[in-house]
């Protein structure tokens, strides 16, 4: 059994030498690996997250994002490598690490038999928080999650977006400085997603470190200061959304649709236009600095696509470039 005083002294979140002026890292992972029998879900990934950053793991389903989150969350044992959360190894100090975190799992696991507000109270009790703190805090969080008028409803009666917001409110009951969000907006309609994004922005403004996984590139672009692109358990690229686009894509993209029959064959006729051409089943992408100019060149060659669209490059293009496939299959 630990004494509180011992833990407080041990609990140094700094993993860079003191006084060097380097940022304080709240999470440090080195060669983190997780295998299930023959399958390697996470294959030697390394990253560091400074306090207050919004850090994203972007990748398709099955890339190893959730497995990484479970290891950070101190609920899944790693196969090899090292991991430190607030200076503590989650395998040796599970409860201490988890006490620092707020966790929003991929699947909601609210207690549907309890009322909305009671879900928050009960969860706070797991941290040993007294009711004198929990009651006003629960009301404050319900306000934050825009669920005040649902406080006495059963969880069953909530919509998907409301349940998600309640799960986020629940994860904040212990005032965590690190929030883990595993695909926070998957399955939500656009309006519900925007409300959630807004709430997450506010937390970021308050200095909460956000770690989130997503397979939506717009979400990653909106929320993340920095992200790693993960595929098959490995890190494919790392950087801010803007720098990733700069490094791995062109400024603009020209999207052409020639009809599903023609798309596959038209590629050779387009050769030489733009910097790179990507042929997808439903469309052809031409990566170019100037999309309009590329479109003019296409017309000049006597090619007439059914539709054409010039847009800015996105993380989707980065991902396509790195892995040869789109994010949401």
């Amino acid at each position, binding site marked *: 059994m630990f004494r509180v005083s011992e833990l407080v002294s041990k609990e140094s979140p700094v993993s860079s030498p003191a006084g060097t002026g380097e940022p304080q890292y709240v999470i440090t992972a080195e060669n983190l690996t997780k295998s299930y029998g023959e399958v390697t879900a996470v294959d030697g990934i390394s990253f560091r997250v400074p306090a207050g950053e919004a850090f994203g793991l972007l990748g398709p389903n099955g890339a190893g994002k959730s497995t990484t989150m479970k290891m950070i969350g101190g609920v899944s*044992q790693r196969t090899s490598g090292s991991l430190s959360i*607030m200076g503590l190894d989650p395998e040796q100090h599970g409860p201490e690490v988890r006490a620092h975190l707020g966790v929003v799992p991929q699947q909601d696991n609210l207690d549907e*038999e*309890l009322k909305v507000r009671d879900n928050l109270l009960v969860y706070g*009790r*797991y*941290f040993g928080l007294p009711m004198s703190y929990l009651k006003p805090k629960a009301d404050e969080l319900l306000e934050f999650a825009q669920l005040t008028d649902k406080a006495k409803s059963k969880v069953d009666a909530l919509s998907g977006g409301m349940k998600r917001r309640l799960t986020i409110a629940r994860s904040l009951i212990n005032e965590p400085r690190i929030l883990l969000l595993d695909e926070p907006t998957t399955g939500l309609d656009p309006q519900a997603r925007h409300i959630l994004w807004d709430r997450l922005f506010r937390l970021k403004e308050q200095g909460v470190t956000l770690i989130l996984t997503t397979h939506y590139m717009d979400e990653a672009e909106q929320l993340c200061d920095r992200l790693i692109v993960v595929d098959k358990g490995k890190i494919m690229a790392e950087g801010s959304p803007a720098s990733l686009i700069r490094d791995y894509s062109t400024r603009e993209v020209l999207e052409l649709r020639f009809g599903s029959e023609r798309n596959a064959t038209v590629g050779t006729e387009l050769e030489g236009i733009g910097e790179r051409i990507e042929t997808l089943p439903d469309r052809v992408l031409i990566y170019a600095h100037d999309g309009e100019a590329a479109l003019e060149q296409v017309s000049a060659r006597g090619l007439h696509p059914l539709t054409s669209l010039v847009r800015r490059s996105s993380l989707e293009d980065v991902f396509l470039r790195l892995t040869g496939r789109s994010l949401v299959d």
Partner: protein
Amino acid sequence: MTKEAALTGSAPTTAAAAPRAHSPAVSAARARRWGAFYYAEQVLRVMKGYGWTIVMYGVGQPVAYLFAMGVGLATLVDTGSNAAFGGVSYLAFIAPALLISAAVMTAANEFTFPVMDGFKWRRVYYGPHASPLTPEQIAAGQIIAVTVRFVLQSAIYFGVVALFGASPSGWGWVSILVATLAGLAFGLPLMAYAATIKDDRGQFAMVMRFIVMPLFLFSGTFFPLDTLPLAVRWIGWISPIWHGTELGRVFSYGYEEAPLLTVVHIVFLLGLAVFGWVLTRRLFAKRMAS
């Protein structure tokens, strides 16, 4: 005081009235010590939602059984020889058996479907699993909560039995504890089994039909076990209901049996409960880590 001064004056008080959460280190230390009780609190809150069912089950079942068996059937049975039932009325003979059986049947419900709910259906275990609580504490918390239910339900049951005058000895109340122990002896190994089930294909209904019911009928509940042929008497010997019932009879009407046998009952029930508890802890930890 001006309005402004009043406002600024009140501001710090409001801030002080909104307490901050204690540090993560305090959370972790408290969870390490009290975690099982924190989870028990959650389960008891959920049980409160069907509190009336528990009370009605606790009162309704003994009234129905005691009336049908102990009063109705007894008019036929008691005309024979009371000696067969250790010199007490048929009502006093079956009362401890019904008390123990009710606890075991409750165990068969509380340690099956809710476990499946925790791991699979609504995944309620995975919420606390992300908090400082450990899987072992989650298991322990559920057991504590169900134990509270056993004690409450058995106390109500015993109250009704006492009103029927079916517990002549002053030590009858001890059978509340015996019923609780029997419930755990049957329930904890069952909980371990439930923790291994990935898909519900009617296993729990099978447990009810092919384990709980035979145990209920052939555990010396309605007639002494030694009136059965040896070929089926073993069902009683391995049955927590039989061990619990015999123990209950010792306390409720001073049933005379070899003292060694009384010890065997206690050791058997405790042994099963401990075995189930150790196994449950392990299986919970393993399943939640995967």
